[in-house]
């Protein structure tokens, strides 16, 4: 989407260089979903085990 700028303005070299920003942002990698899911499953399993052993110890 583009928006018309209301007034003329000075175009600096720095601004032209920043035109790469969009490409860089859209080229970023997404989250490593599978890796995170795997780690979450392991975390959950261990935490549940800890909770279970705590409850068993409290009986």
């Amino acid at each position, binding site marked *: 989407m583009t928006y018309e700028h209301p007034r003329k303005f000075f175009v600096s070299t720095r601004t032209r260089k920043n035109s790469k*920003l*969009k490409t860089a942002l859209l080229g970023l990698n*997404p989250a490593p979903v599978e890796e*995170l899911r795997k780690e*979450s499953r392991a975390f959950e399993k261990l935490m549940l085990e800890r909770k279970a052993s705590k409850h068993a110890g409290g009986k």
Partner: protein
Amino acid sequence: MINLETYDTALYRMVHLTSKDKDAISKFVVKNPKGFGLQNYLIKWSLRDEEEGLVRTYLIKDKEDGSIVAYFSLRTGLMTQRSSLFHFDTITGIELANFAVNDSYRDAHDVMPELGRYVFSSFVYPLVCDISRYVGASILYIFSLPEKKLMGHYEKMGFQRLPSKMERFIHRHVKPTYDRGCIFMAQRILQVDR
């Protein structure tokens, strides 16, 4: 409407912050002195921002005892960039404006260090993906405290820094005063099944 119960895990559940949580959030602790702003935000500002619709804050609660495990806040953001003499391109995003684990919960429950990533992958990321199905958003970004260890955690969650010139541009143009000294990190949002 997004039903937050669908995000429940075996351990925790996610709830939208309401005034009923006022007492509970007053006990939220962030031990790292640099992260005091995160504790301060939740206790003093989060409910006001909720009322004004500026930021949405979510609490992660322990299913067993209801105590607050962590919290995070989301808001929309827009990066603007000149594409030609008279036009601007826009890059839409969602800002993970606040993200903190409750240190008092961590101490009391003997929690493993991966808790932050668990919260991110079980609640933050799926919610962001669902939101992006309803509202266009290309990137998820955060202004991280400038600490190597913390930034390492964010990298494991998929956040990346930009090349230094672009990072400086972002810091000069869109970084809130609230995040002074923090570093911009972002990741692409993809439509994924969860």
